[in-house]
């Protein structure tokens, strides 16, 4: 066995932490996008992530697709499912935040139990990102870790350019800052909201495909990831896209570091202690801005 010093150990922890953190960040983006547009929190986000993994699994088992087309197909399908669900269910729930939250929790339960009927046990995901091992500086990890990190960067860049440079993206931002005024200047508000909803589904499902090959997939895998992604969004600022990315990666890194150097028994605690501390001391998050109550 190669000798691995404390530098190799630290590197291993950092890369693992950034990879899992990227997943929290991408899933957390779903919370952020919807919150910015609607001031609503979709607590089914983690289960959409899980359903996306299984969608990817079913497709990958049937057709031997390379990673990128698989990711794109899953994301497009998830987008469409999101738009349809918004139209037939969630649009009716916007009038009341409490009702919306209960509806979202309901969606999560439905998704989880539907998948459970077909996959009651954890199953392995095909290694769509290859099985090569990358080694440097005493750290060894699957190539898939790099895919996760790389895809997160690309995804965030794409989202950013979409919201900044395209007409449709700007229309969504207009709806997010003030739906009423956006409507009066000609933006199709219901459509923009439906598309934002679809987008939150697409990013969650994409994250699901990214993480699939790293671990086994099971119908209850979305619980913890959803909660940690929510903690990531709150840490960074739930109305800030860069904040959520930062929050996700910070939580991924911190829980891995705490797991190694303090005690692995308290690994999961990190995200929730951060969540509580942020809610008490800095509810707008690191990069978030407070939204003044409109009168």
């Amino acid at each position, binding site marked *: *066995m190669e000798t691995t010093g404390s530098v190799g*150990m630290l590197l291993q922890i950092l890369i*693992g932490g950034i990879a899992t953190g990227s997943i929290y960040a991408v899933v957390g983006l779903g919370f952020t996008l919807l919150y910015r547009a609607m001031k609503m929190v979709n607590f089914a986000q983690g289960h959409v992530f899980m359903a996306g993994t299984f969608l990817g699994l079913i497709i990958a088992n049937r057709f031997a697709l390379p990673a990128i087309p698989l990711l794109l197909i899953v994301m497009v399908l998830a987008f469409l499912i999101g738009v349809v669900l918004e139209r037939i269910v969630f649009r009716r729930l916007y009038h009341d935040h409490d009702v919306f939250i209960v509806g979202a929790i309901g969606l999560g339960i439905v998704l989880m139990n539907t998948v459970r009927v077909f996959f009651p046990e*954890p*199953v392995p995901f095909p290694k769509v990102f290859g099985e090569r091992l990358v080694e440097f500086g005493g750290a060894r990890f*699957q190539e898939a870790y790099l895919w996760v990190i790389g895809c997160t960067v690309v995804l965030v860049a794409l989202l950013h350019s979409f919201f900044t440079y395209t007409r449709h993206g700007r229309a969504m931002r207009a709806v997010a800052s003030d739906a009423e005024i956006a409507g009066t200047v000609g933006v199709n508000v219901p459509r923009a909201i439906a598309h934002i909803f679809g987008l939150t589904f697409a990013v969650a499902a994409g994250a699901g495909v990214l993480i699939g090959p790293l671990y086994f997939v099971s119908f209850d895998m979305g619980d913890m990831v959803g909660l940690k992604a929510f903690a990531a969004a709150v840490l960074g600022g739930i109305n800030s896209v860069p904040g959520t990315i930062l929050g996700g990666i910070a939580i991924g890194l911190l829980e*891995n570091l705490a797991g190694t150097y303090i005690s692995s*028994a308290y690994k999961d605690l990190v995200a929730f202690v951060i969540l509580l501390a942020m809610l008490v001391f800095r509810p707008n998050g690191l990069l978030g801005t407070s939204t003044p109550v409109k009168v």
Partner: protein
Amino acid sequence: MRNKLAAIAILSAAVAATSAQAEDIRIGVIAGFSGPGTSYGIGIRQGAEMAVKEINAEGGINGRKLELVVVDDGSNPGQSVTAMQRLINDKVDLIVGGWGSSQVLAAMEPAERAGMPYVVVGASNPRITTEKNKWTFRVLQSDTLQAEEVADIAVHRLGLKRIAVIHDANDYGVSNRESFVARMKKLGVNPVEVQVYQTTDKDFTAQLTRIRASNPDGLAIFGTIPAAPAIMNQAREIGIKAQFLGTTGIANENLITLAPKASEGTIFATMFHEDVDPDARKWSDRYVKEFSGGSQPPRPVLAAWEYRAIKFIVAPCLKKAGTDKDKFRSCLTTWKGRIFGLPDEAYFNKTNHLVQQSVIVQVGGGEFRAYKGDK
């Protein structure tokens, strides 16, 4: 008037017929059909279904059919109390099942209070069968013996010197770690690293990186599916080449599905192996045939004890003592008999624990093989 009388006569005859046709004997089955224990729960359910089907096909017990009442405890100790309470309220005659030491330790409390005979088939923590349990019986080997046996093999037969341990933080993982480490120390070997994880963890980079730094030649994994195969996969990925060891927690065919390459060579103590005797092989073939092709593959290791407990221990006692709980319990305490897969006659000791030897297997060529002792 005559018509009325005739009607009454027919009615009373009908009533007499139903009461003569005795009620079903209801057997509760409790296990995890969701959560991390799912793949074990499925095996337990299949074993119960098979045993009950066979007994009913032969006419039941003293003319009474067996009926299963299956409840899910979500592989969660809190829920297992609720599940047990449901079975007690439902007035089942006895319970055969239970998977996971933490779940069983929690669920046996209400069973003891209600005086409900509870035959445990899937939990190995020594604290389940002490002097205090009156109604809880266990047919499975306890952690202490298994972990000690595996420690002996690691040190004596494999000659491992640098052994690391990673274990679940639950009652199963902790008691295995305690027995294993204590035995190793007696043999003059100190573990080079001990790490802990939570049952639902998916990423073990943090623990395994520490373990890798200790440069082990053996790694004992005291956990269950899906964590244990994930640990094996991730350990091999980051370059740990140590020999994997374990106990009944990983005695589940799903281990090989989830860690096809990484689990190869793993040595562990299990509760059943089909090659121990010809009858075990015959049963296993029959079982695999019956449950193949469904959405869940057959798992002989898990089904074996549930099947054997119902067929060889519970059924004879029901036949002899009936469903009166006190009589049934005392029948169990004096039960003695041969069961396929066990070398000697088995019986319950004074703590209601079935005395038996454990079976050591090694993963090889995608299956569990009886361990012969060569490296």
